[in-house]
């Protein structure tokens, strides 16, 4: 009986809305097809083609993928990205968590500090890259060298830049998580004689696991998709020649895909094939990470 009533109620709102589908759905859906669905499907198709523009595409089967996997630059970019992601996910999350933890304790000026730490997020990646390349070059000049002289400088430079940018963002998320830890739970732990460290590891951290899930997800996908900062800081330099092919030593995957495309039109298909591989990699990582950390969350 209640079920029947519910159904009638729903239709009262539902039925008239349906007639307005063109108004409510069509603009977004049309733009979504133009901006996402069509380019996505065409992208998969073109990764099996040799092309300059989609009009002159010729089917070449898996040749682009074969070329992509043989490319030393792509392999180098993969290991750069993997290493970069590992280091930056750890560094950003640990720093952001402890800054958030400190700022949620009673402290004078906590709001001001929060404002300052978040600020770098408002600045675009390209601008950040140039600011930091000036700073790093200024420091390295004292040792008569420069940022793009050595791949190690470029790698750690990028880690510092991205940490500086993203710690503030993740800190905001951790602060929101920390503020939602139930007060009575902390008090109960205190009464039971838990030390500060014990309540941090046994009460607080398990309770902020949803924030940890979100932050590791964001930092992981951000690191894998990083482009602007990489391009503006080192542009992939320095490069070396391996077996007659140029390998950019500080390139991450996203930049490698772009620079492959710009080599010549012969490489367009290879760049698109790399993009498909990159998409699969990001998708698998994102889904696995969600699955793994979601299991560790506390049910409230």
């Amino acid at each position, binding site marked *: 009986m209640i079920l029947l009533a519910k159904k009638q109620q729903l239709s009262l*709102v539902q039925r008239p809305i349906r007639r307005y589908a063109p108004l409510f759905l069509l*603009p977004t859906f049309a733009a979504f097809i*133009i901006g*996402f669905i069509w380019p996505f499907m065409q992208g998969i198709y073109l990764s099996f083609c040799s092309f300059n523009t989609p009009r002159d595409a010729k089917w070449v089967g898996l040749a682009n993928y074969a070329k992509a996997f043989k490319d030393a630059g792509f392999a180098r970019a993969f290991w750069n990205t993997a290493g970069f992601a590992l280091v930056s996910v750890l560094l950003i999350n640990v720093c952001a968590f402890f800054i958030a933890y*400190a700022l949620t304790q009673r402290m004078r000026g906590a709001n001001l500090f929060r404002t300052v730490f978040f600020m770098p997020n408002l600045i675009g990646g390209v601008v950040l890259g*140039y600011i930091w390349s000036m*700073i790093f070059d200024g420091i390295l000049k004292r040792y008569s060298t420069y940022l793009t002289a050595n791949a190690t400088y470029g790698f750690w430079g990028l880690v510092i830049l991205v940490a500086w940018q993203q710690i503030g963002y993740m800190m905001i998320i951790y602060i929101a998580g920390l503020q939602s830890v139930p007060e009575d739970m902390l008090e109960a732990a205190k009464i039971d004689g838990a030390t500060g460290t014990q309540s941090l590891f046994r009460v607080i951290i398990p309770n902020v696991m949803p924030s940890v899930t979100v932050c590791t997800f964001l930092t992981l996908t951000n690191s894998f998709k990083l482009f602007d900062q990489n391009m503006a800081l080192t542009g992939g330099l320095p490069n070396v020649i391996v077996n007659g092919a140029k390998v950019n030593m500080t390139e991450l995957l996203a930049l490698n895909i772009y620079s492959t495309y710009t080599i010549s039109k012969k490489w367009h298909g290879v760049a698109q094939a790399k993009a498909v591989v990159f998409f699969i990699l990001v998708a698998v990582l994102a889904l696995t990470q969600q699955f793994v950390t979601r299991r560790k969350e506390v049910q409230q």
Partner: protein
Amino acid sequence: MNKKHSLYSPLSKVMSVLFALLSLAWIMPIIEVLINSFKSNNAVNMNPFALPNSETFMGWGNYIKGLTFGNYPFLKSVSYSLFITVASVFLILLFCSMSAWYICRVNSLGSKIFYYLCLFSMIVPFQMVMFTLTFTADMLKLNTPYTIPIVYLGFGAGLAIFMFTGFVKGLPIEIEEAAAIDGCSPVQTFFQVVLPMLKPTLISVGILELMWVWNDYLLPYLVLDRTKYLTIPIHVQYLKGSYGTVDLGATMAVIMLSIIPIIIVYMFCQKHIIKGVAAGAVKG
């Protein structure tokens, strides 16, 4: 002991000092840019950390130069950036909230498919679609600042619809029913009843999209006709990446000009921005 003292433990005072120093270090890069924007090109090259002296101080010279050099007036890029950002965010907020409401209220196969496609689009990196999106945008003449907001609506729909549906699901349907019984058409119901209730989510989504579009480099770089239209990030990239000698002092002035408006907005909307980021994360 007065009350103020007892509020803060000695440890928290030490932490305050520590964090004050850390905050100062945190904004040093921006202060560096500010200092260097008043120095001559050579002085920036020689030692970017030195303060300007009477020889190297340029006054507003760099700013005046920065506004004009590179054959393209900086203010033109600023106006294109402004227009693209405002128009894109407006389109995304309006159309995505409408679609999200429809998806939540009409339980059809079509709206389910659309919803799952939106979720799917969130894990697809831009690199996957960037070349083909460029072709499509060129073909459909979406390569101007006046039409590129449609591309942003399309590529940004996923996150926006996901966040809006998350919120609409929590809205009590009874209010809308009451409106329907009182004779509201769905359009009236949406704009006069639902949309006002969505205000906090509109602000959160708006801020996330604003930060994305304003700072986005690659999409406008690939899609726009670059012989005619630049945005701020592309302009900065052109200054620094152009061949030949680059005037570092003037580049720093341009960077400073691009940062200042953001910082001013941040000062005024800080609470909303921080709330928006936190809200976006809960849903993400």
